[in-house]
């Protein structure tokens, strides 16, 4: 466990599935150098196949006894999808508009399909996912090279690309399949929680750009942080599939309200909800009941009295109210370690541990 832990809370009631976070992440980190197929941040439709395809059934994570479970490494073409582009340049020569590879699968292939029968009881919601920067990461445990580490300063889970040898056991070990293989450099890569931004006091790109203002970022031990209040004080934000045993540090406010179902005549079935609670229980565990009860109670309280700290937090009147990052903290870490305050605080890329001459080009 790291000294401090950064966490993100995503309010699923506010996610509109616009993919601005996905694009923010992609343009910042994954549009080049063999990462083209990767989505460190993706927004999937739930229920759905997700990204990569059926990731919840691909193993990894820990069982109740704390033993790492074997997993499957997804196939780029069949499970992630090969990114395709179009022949824009040839259009001028009269060619017909075609993709450069035959698209067979990709993220959001089943966007907005959801489950149930329209219009009676169909339903879905959006589930944005990044690396959970777990307290007990499956990827880290699976690595036979000690190439994955969790930073002491903030619990960000990173791959030391100098040590990584491209074995891909980390992908099998991560139950969220949020670590990817970069075939161009033959190493694994993953969401870095935008640590170079975080260290300068800026939120991760996905959170900064989120138009729905669903993402809160801060330190879990900071009692004034939004994430502390949502996770520990009100206990409304819950980890995704915490039954995998990795102790994820991205938390979700579960979808609280859903419309009623219609009967065969198209009339509203009073008291019904489209979103089956079992589905939410599967994703967020039994605590989802208390979370939803608290959220509903606070909504009621807000309606009646006009006061609710929790709802004020969730509304996020000011974008800046969603993040409590600590540039001074990182500056302090850099100072204590006599490092350049502008350089990333981690020096693990600098020297090979067992190289006699100690150097690293």
């Amino acid at each position, binding site marked *: 466990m790291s000294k401090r832990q950064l966490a993100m809370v995503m309010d699923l009631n506010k996610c509109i599935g616009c993919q601005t976070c996905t694009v923010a992440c992609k343009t910042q980190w994954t*549009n*080049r*150098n*063999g990462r*083209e*197929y990767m989505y460190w941040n993706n927004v999937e439709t739930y229920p759905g196949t997700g990204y990569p395809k059926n990731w919840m059934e691909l*193993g*990894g994570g820990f069982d109740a*006894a*704390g*033993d*790492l*479970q*074997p*997993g*499957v*490494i*997804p*196939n*780029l*073409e069949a499970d*992630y999808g*090969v990114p395709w*582009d179009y022949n824009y340049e040839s259009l001028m020569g009269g060619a017909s508009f075609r993709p450069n590879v035959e698209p067979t699968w990709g993220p959001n292939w089943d966007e907005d399909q959801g489950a149930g029968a329209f219009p009676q009881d169909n339903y879905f919601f959006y589930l944005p996912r990044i690396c959970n920067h777990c307290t*007990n990461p499956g990827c*880290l*445990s*699976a*690595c*036979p*090279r*000690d190439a994955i580490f969790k930073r002491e300063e903030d619990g960000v889970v990173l791959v030391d*690309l*100098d*040590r990584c*040898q*491209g*074995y*891909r*056991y980390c*992908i*099998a*070990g991560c139950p969220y399949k949020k670590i*990817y*293989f970069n*075939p*161009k*450099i*033959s*190493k694994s890569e993953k969401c870095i929680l935008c640590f170079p931004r975080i260290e300068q006091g800026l939120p991760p790109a996905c959170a900064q750009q989120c138009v729905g203002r669903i993402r809160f970022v801060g330190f879990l031990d900071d009692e004034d942080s939004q994430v502390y209040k949502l996770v520990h004080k009100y206990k409304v934000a819950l980890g995704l599939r915490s039954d995998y045993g990795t102790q994820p540090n991205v938390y979700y406010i579960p979808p609280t309200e859903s419309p009623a179902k219609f009967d065969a005549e198209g009339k509203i079935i009073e008291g019904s909800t489209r979103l089956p609670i079992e589905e939410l229980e599967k994703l967020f565990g039994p605590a989802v009941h208390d979370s939803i009860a608290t959220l509903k109670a606070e909504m009621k309280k807000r309606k009646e009295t006009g006061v609710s700290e929790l709802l004020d937090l969730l509304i996020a009147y000011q974008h800046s109210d969603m993040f409590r990052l600590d540039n001074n903290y990182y500056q302090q870490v850099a100072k204590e370690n006599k490092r350049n305050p502008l350089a990333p605080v981690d020096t693990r890329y600098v020297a*090979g*541990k*067992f*190289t*006699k*001459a*100690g*150097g*690293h*080009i």
Partner: protein
Amino acid sequence: MKKILTSILSLGLACSAALAADAPVNALKVTDSLDGITADSALWSKAKFSEVTLYPQTALKMNDKKANDMNAADKAKKAEVAALYDGKNIALMVKWADGTKNIQGSYSSDTYSDGFAVQFAGTTKKAEPLPYIGMGSEGRPVIVHLQKATASVYEPNGNKDVETQVNRNQTNLFGQELKDYDAKVASLAKTDYERVFTAQGFRSLTEIKDGSAKSSASMTYGTNGWSGTLSRPLNDDYIKSNGTVPVAIAVWDGSKNGRDGLKNLSSWVAVNLEGMKPDAKRLGEITEVSKGDAAKGKEALATNGCNGCHQITAEDPASVMAPSLKNVGGYSTVAYLRESILKPSAVVVPGYNRNAHSNTPWYTIEKGKRISAMTDYSFLDKKTVEDIVAYLKTLKAEVE
């Protein structure tokens, strides 16, 4: 009577041959330089090939479900090894059968390359027994030369070539300029996936990137198999050689998702440099044959409850508490097996991350040293230890 005696004798010989280590490889002295030698070199025509058995690595089971299923029934392989030396460098050629030529896909997430590696024992301050076969052990380093059959790899080279790290579609280049850009990116690729590592136990493998370890390796695919060559200095910062150079060979099969521990490996093999005095101690350690009684050893293993933590044969349930012993006889020396019984903490196979099985910690760290959870069996009498060692030497997969 004579006939019976002969057959008894030959039976005895066959038995001891099964228990013995691979015979030493004789390195032929050549006058031509071995720098950058490949499999095509005429120098190999004089070299004598010796058989080396490569056993599937089963001490540890990795967490790739598909690969584990593919490799579940793995058998040992035979490789042919020859060696040359020119006084400055040593060169080895390894030939092994592989029905498919596998090269990791350039845009694929789940394909793997064929490859081979040669491990050398690193120098230590004072004389030590040979390092543990799997990546060495604390205080007893190994040097591993790895050659994989890969397509182009664009590994970060530390030169901060950021201007070439942009997707070609997002550059503002067109026509010839874009072609030039593509050519520049292509020129940054490494097409030869050759690496030199140093390690002191599983998980500590670290690439030597400072140029202090010179080597030249190549792989050529022929009819139904690979020929791999490696040449490296006999003496450098990492190894000091005398008349006997201990080496160990590993090969990976990409068609079975082989990489890392999913490999076949030999035990330590002695390479005797022709015309030089063999190092009797090293040679003895590598070629020692156990004199114990394997049947009694099997009983002793049961009496002492070894199967409580170790998987002994393929039929026993797998255990995460201790390394599986099902191929231990194939890739271990007698000296290593004896040492493991008498001084379990002398070499602790660090194995996978302890966090992967947090409730079965097979070692603790005291004052920076790994202390094995295994009972110290130094109380056993000498004969029993030898019997156990003899039995452990029989634990190995059949040759395919």
